[in-house]
């Protein structure tokens, strides 16, 4: 090996391995938390601490989770590192993906389909995440049918309205967005589960074929679970009536103030009783 090999190889392998790592941490870990939080609109129905029943409880549980996340310390830092990681993983991913020539036409093995799908779902995922973050986080409401702006104080109702296309009911464009969400999350969950499996080969954790199979079962299990959470959440939000949800969220907002007011023993809390939505 000549001296000039040094930087060349460290950068090459380092970038490849960072690409693998960034997909797991922070992106993959975030995906797990994000999807389970979303699914709280459904599993929240079992949350007896919330008033009402069924989806009403779900809507409030979801709102409770969202508020909790919004109060997290260093949230912007977490967000920034996520955006950086996603940007890095996406750009390198595309660079790597264009170097290969999928050949499922000639070699129709399931593993070869996995390889090809990993690349396809990556491309879809980039578009989906961009749309998702731009509309629901950066407030690019011109991309949302009906122009709904997502708000973390009215998390379920604004999301439900964005998915339906309006507060009043489903519109054609709204259905298109909902289908887009279904495809987007499905692709991303597959991409993560499969990436988790291949990363174990890349890093050399699973060496023998048996170990790869065993780890494959774990990843498939996790993938099925996450897929369930993702679809469950989507169904939950599609069944959520934005107007009803809005009323529940209003209730929580004023309720939160009451609690706050009690805690402050009426000192400041009572200064703003009837808060406008």
């Amino acid at each position, binding site marked *: *090996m000549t001296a000039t*090999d040094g930087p*060349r*190889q*460290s950068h*090459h*392998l*380092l970038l*490849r*391995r960072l690409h693998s790592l960034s997909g797991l941490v922070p992106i993959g870990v975030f995906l797990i938390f994000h999807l389970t939080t979303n699914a709280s609109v459904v599993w929240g129905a079992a949350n007896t601490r919330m008033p009402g029943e069924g989806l009403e409880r779900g809507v409030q549980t979801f709102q409770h989770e969202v508020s909790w996340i919004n109060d997290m310390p260093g949230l912007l830092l977490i967000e920034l590192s996520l955006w950086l990681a996603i940007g890095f993983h996406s750009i390198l991913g595309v660079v*790597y993906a264009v*170097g*290969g*020539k*999928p*050949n499922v036409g*000639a*070699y*129709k*093995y399931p*593993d*070869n389909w*996995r*390889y*090809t799908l*990993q690349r396809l779902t990556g491309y879809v995922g980039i578009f989906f995440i961009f749309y998702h973050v731009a509309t629901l986080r950066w407030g690019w409401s011109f991309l949302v049918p009906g122009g709904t702006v997502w708000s973390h104080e009215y998390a379920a109702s604004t999301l439900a309205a964005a998915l339906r296309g309006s507060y009043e009911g489903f519109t054609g464009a709204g259905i298109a967005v909902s289908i887009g969400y279904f495809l987007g999350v499905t692709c991303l969950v597959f991409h993560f589960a499969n990436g988790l499996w*291949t990363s*174990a*080969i*890349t*890093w*050399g*954790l*699973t*060496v*023998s*074929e048996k170990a*790869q199979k065993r780890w494959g079962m774990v990843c498939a299990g996790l993938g099925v679970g996450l897929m369930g959470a993702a679809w469950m959440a989507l169904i939950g939000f599609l069944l959520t009536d934005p107007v009803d949800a809005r009323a529940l969220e209003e209730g929580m907002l004023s309720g939160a103030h009451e609690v706050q007011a009690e805690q402050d023993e009426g000192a400041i809390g009572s200064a703003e009783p009837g808060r406008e939505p």
Partner: protein
Amino acid sequence: MAIAYAHESTADQRRANRTRAVEGRTVLCRVRRCDGPGKAGRWESFKVPVEPGMNVIACLKHIAQNPVTVDGNTTTPVVYDAGCLEEVCGACTMLINGMARQSCSCLIDEYAPLEGDTITLEPMTKFPVIRDLWVDRARLFQSLTRVKAWVPIDGTYALGAGPKESPEVQQDRYDMSECMSCGCCLEACPQFTIEPDEASWDTSFIGAHAISQARLFNGHATGKELKNDRLDELMNPGGVSECGNAQNCVKVCPKGVPLTESIATIGRQVTIRSFTRFFSGK
């Protein structure tokens, strides 16, 4: 009858085909021809009477005796490469019904069992064609030199007896040692693409076979001496991280070389090596 391409036909199907092969039949041999490097290709079909147990090479030899196509045009004998004729040298590898395998061990009975069935022969696509079915596998061998796939014993004095090898390690390494440098694993790999420019062979994907040979020699008591050199090369562009885990290689390897296990093992060795280099600088 529609013929299943090799990749669609399982070993069971091929065995079944052998038992129902019709004696005294004539099959159509469809060959992709090319007059030389860079020249345009063309198809030519030949009628070949099949003898029991006939292989593809015998089929090509029959054509060479009387190279007349089904259209009645006299042409040249089909050019191909071969060596051992017993599936140990890898020279005769070509695409048979769309999938890479050895023409010396490929029986017509398994692919074209009935009267009038077609068997299609094409050169491999990941290596430059020299002529007809004969390709230049030089890059495959260059990959082996990149990872120093040998045991360093050259010297100016006798080195004496080598270290002992345990039977377990021997057993592990045996499967890898069966590689015959045929190129099937590269032909099937979506990450290994044809690279006509020889200058870029040092940085283009090295291929599953070379990764596996690096593991073979890294596991050898004397071959270990070059382990770091091999791993350093496999950390370079075109090294092990170029693999996309499609795992086609292991499925098409005619020798059953455990390629995906080798890729993962080298992945592990490279992980450890890169941490060592990072923290110790060596």
